[in-house]
Structures are given as structure tokens and as C-alpha cells.
């Protein structure tokens, strides 16, 4: 699946999207683990970031539906 990256997460990876393979019916917690393993540079920020699935905040126990984008949402600072 595609995982969108923003702000410092994008700068750390040097791109605005990464691809990651997950089993069917994987949870957000599994996505976090897979991202940390595949991209060590993201680990520290990931621990402080939210995950969005289908453009909404998703807790760790949420099951990721097929064909949606996920995103790493670092702590926000708009306003």
C-alpha cells in the first residue's frame, strides 16, 4: 500500500510517498511496525506521529481496508 509522508517525515525520506507490503486485514499497529522496520530513519518521528487511513485519524487497532491511502501525520502545527 501507499503511505503518504508530510513535513519532516517527507524530508527524512526524501520523497512524499513510500510503498509497504502488508498482509490482508493488517492493523494500523502492524503498519507502524512495518514502517519502522523498513525505514529506520522514520522511527523516532513515527513514535510521535498519528496514522491516517482514508483521510481520517486511525487508532492502532483499526483494520486497514483495501485500496485506501494511509499517511504518516506528524504532530500538527497549523494556525
Amino acid at each position, binding site marked *: 500500500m501507499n503511505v503518504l509522508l*508530510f513535513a*519532516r517525515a517527507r524530508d527524512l525520506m526524501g520523497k512524499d510517498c513510500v510503498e509497504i507490503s502488508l498482509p490482508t486485514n493488517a492493523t494500523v499497529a502492524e503498519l507502524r511496525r512495518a514502517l519502522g522496520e523498513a525505514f529506520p530513519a522514520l522511527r*523516532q*518521528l513515527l513514535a510521535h506521529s498519528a496514522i*491516517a487511513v482514508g483521510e481520517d485519524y486511525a487508532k492502532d487497532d483499526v483494520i486497514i481496508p483495501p485500496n485506501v491511502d494511509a499517511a504518516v*501525520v506528524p*504532530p*500538527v502545527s*497549523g494556525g
Partner: protein
Amino acid sequence: MIRLTREPIDYFRLTEAVRRNACGAVVVFLGTVRDLTGNQITVALDYEAYPGMAEKKMTEIEADTRERWPVGDILLEHRLGHLEVGDISVAVAVSCPHRVQAFEACRHAIDRLKELVPIWKKENWADGRTEWVHPGA
């Protein structure tokens, strides 16, 4: 109504747009680019958003605010891109029948926006360094 824009925010237009004959109070909040954070000097900020999700969250905040206060109309607008010191980054305009409601509704909307909407700013410090602002990270 909500909007993300790369153009300067026209707060006169925003204020006029929420005025209603049934509303005796209009409150407008403007967030502007400040030149000093602690003892560090800011020369500019770059704002970026996760646009689809940001619009979705702003729409939810509008609906939530309308549910909790007797809002005549409400506009939330956030600017993206490169902003200089003094530029307006965000505006919330709310009309209600009475001032207490309008103050509370406006406060609620801007507080929720800052808490929930996926928008980030990057500091451009006077010494040439840049730094994404991620509170707590």
C-alpha cells in the same frame, strides 16, 4: 464554509460573508506570522497541508461548531505556502445572535483547528536554518 488557499486571506470579505441580520455579534480571529519564538527570530514560515484530510477535518470542525452554538455563519480559511512575518496564516469568522456565543464558537473552532487539522509549518530562522514544527516530537 472552509477553504485552503495560497492567496492572501481577505479578512474583510470573510467578515462581511458571515454577517447576518439575525446575528448581533461577529467575532473574527486572525493568526499572523510572529517574528519571535523564545529568543529565535523568524523571517518566514512555509505552510503545507495534507489537503484532502485537512479539508475534511475543517468541515467536521465547522459542523461541530454549528451543532454547539447558534451560528449564523462560520468561515474557516487557512493559507498555505510561503508566508512572511506579519502575513495572515489563518482566519476564523463567526456570527451568532449574541457576543458570548460568538466568542466561544470562534475560540472552539480555532482551538480544534490547531489540534486536529493536518497542516504543518516550517520555521525559516534568521540565521538561515529551517525546521519543521512538530510539537512534542
